[in-house]
């Protein structure tokens, strides 16, 4: 058998394959569990031993998106037959739908705050990283260290000062406040990651653009940005995931207007006993945007996450 340095042996391949599959299964089980639970009836969701095969129902989703009140028989009589499929599901439990729940709003808040802070973080981060990479910035190394040092403690350690600052500035429970907060937390990461990516882009490309008659700014966005796309995409994913999943500050700083989905989802439990399917449904829907975003940027991600090591 010939021996090759680059081609692993069959045995190695099998071993690696099994390892990867096993890891994938282990990580994906909780996810599948959540998705499945969203389609279970409340009794199936708490059955022991757990049921794997069950009759799917949309009750969890209906409960997630609606507020319901327990109705007496008279009231049910007066309301007439159910008009829609979701009313039918609610009636089956002896309740009537009194209106939409707040999940939709909270979800929208998450979208606004998550994507808003990611976008802001990318704009500021790219500009700062470009400056650090290309210009002679006074005290550059100290500044970079200082920026990184904001990540050296858990952000929640400064919760109280931030709470007070937000209260005084009237930023409590506002979209703007949360966008600024998440941007501030993520910015150090994005500056550092993006600087690494921009450092990798040879200066000659910009110089070529300058020679070709473009201004410095045109050279930046026509030549540097397209080449930094990989880095920007992967950095954006990191920022979005953090902002999207952030729980502690959201609990602390938002309650109504600007509350995001993470602090809202656990609240669902309390409304009508232990409504696990509704919680699971909320979590499932909550997963979708990040998943879509990641899949859309997947092409860039693989190269990006290795931080430029496999470029060229």
């Amino acid at each position: 058998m010939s021996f090759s340095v680059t081609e692993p042996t069959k045995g190695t391949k099998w071993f690696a394959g099994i390892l990867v599959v096993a890891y994938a299964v282990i990580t994906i089980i909780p996810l599948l569990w959540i998705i499945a639970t969203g389609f279970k009836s409340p009794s199936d969701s708490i059955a022991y031993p757990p049921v794997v095969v069950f009759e799917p129902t949309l009750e969890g989703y209906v409960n997630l998106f609606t507020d319901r009140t327990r109705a007496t028989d008279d009231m049910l009589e007066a309301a007439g037959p159910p008009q829609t499929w979701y009313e039918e599901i609610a009636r089956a439990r002896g309740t009537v739908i009194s209106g939409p729940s707040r999940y939709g709003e909270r979800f929208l808040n998450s979208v606004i705050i998550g994507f808003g802070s990611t976008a802001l973080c990318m704009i500021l981060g790219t500009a700062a990283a470009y400056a650090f990479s290309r210009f002679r910035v006074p005290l550059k190394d100290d500044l970079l260290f200082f920026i990184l040092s904001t990540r050296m403690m858990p952000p929640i350690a400064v919760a109280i000062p931030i709470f007070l600052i937000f209260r005084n500035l009237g930023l409590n429970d506002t979209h703007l406040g949360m966008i600024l907060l998440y941007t501030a937390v993520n910015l150090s990461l994005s500056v550092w990651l993006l600087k690494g990516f921009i450092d990798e882009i040879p200066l000659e490309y910009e110089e070529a653009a300058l020679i070709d008659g473009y201004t410095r700014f045109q050279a930046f966005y026509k030549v540097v940005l397209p080449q930094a796309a990989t880095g920007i995409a992967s950095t954006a994913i990191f920022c979005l995931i953090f902002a999207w999943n952030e729980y502690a500050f959201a609990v602390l700083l938002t309650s109504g207007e600007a509350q995001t989905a993470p602090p809202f989802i656990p609240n669902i439990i309390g409304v009508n006993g232990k409504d696990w399917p509704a919680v699971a449904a909320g979590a499932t829907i909550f997963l979708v945007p990040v998943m879509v975003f990641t899949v859309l940027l997947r092409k860039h991600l693989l190269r990006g996450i290795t931080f430029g090591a496999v470029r060229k």
Partner: protein
Amino acid sequence: MAQIRIENVRKDFGAFTAVQSSTFTIEDGEFFMLLGPSGCGKTTTLRMMAGLELPTSGEIFIDGEEVGQKPASQRDIAFVFQMFALYPHMNVGKNISYPLLSQGMPKVQVKKKVAEIAEILGITDILNKPVGGLSGGDRQRVALGRAIVRDPKAFFMDEPLGALDAEFREHMSEELRALHDRMNATTVYVTHDQLEAMQMGDKIVVMNHGVVEQFGVPQDIYDWPATKFVAQFIGSPPMNFLNFNGMVGTGSTEVRMNDISITVPEAREGTHGAITFGIRPEHVRLDDSAPYRGRVVATEYLGTTQIVTLETANGAVKARLSSAERVNVGDQTGLQFDARTISLFDAETGKALKSAANKEVLSNG
């Protein structure tokens, strides 16, 4: 196309001076070589001419206009980078058209122009390819295409053949020279390869440690180097140096080296003390009757010629002789120097002493 004049241009990077007060002129349509060893400031000089680096002091004139502090985008020049710097996110055609797009030229016209340039460079069939997979030669051609597409005032090239393998360099340098002759564009070409400079250049400026050592046509620089550095840097093997203590009087036509009188071109400048006697290998002949003696220590056969190394009282001398001549290691023999070709240098300053033979060359550089 344009004349380019560099006057007392200096560049400091912090405390380090990369270029010290350079002055030279590139005439309209010239193929001009910036030659020097690594780190001597060639690239820095070129970048200042292009506007990618601003001079610390001094003036740069392109077409009579002082552009020293103007940004690159306003100088209307083209630059071919060492690694070509083709935009990796664009295909070949887009790369070539990019300088035209910045001028807002209409699409139809751009297309026509790009096709025309591709025709000249023989790259029509790769116009739609991404630049990533191109061979070195094709990259080179695309980079040239991007440079010539705009009819700029001048072309600047920083070791444009450096990234190609030896075999291809030869071919590409011919192509480059042919392209220049066809377009008659003022071209400034940076290289550390003296052979390349001699072969391709109409004129050469030789730099060392940020200082312009000499500038002029290749033949003049080869024959009448202004400094010991130039004499050593150009030619292979380089000029022979024989060091002695003595004197040269203004108007004299001989020097006495170890009490042997040697005829030299009539001196126009005198000195005494440490003097270096310079002679090119091809101007040394072996002649048993000559009074200046040496011993053969090595011979190197090169086909039609051979390089014979001799030991003398003043240092080693290499002679380029016909291969027909029979020379054996260990032979004691006399050395005859062609009197018309001798250069004398002040060993201390390294500067050539003016003589009747080199005064014209030295006065313009």
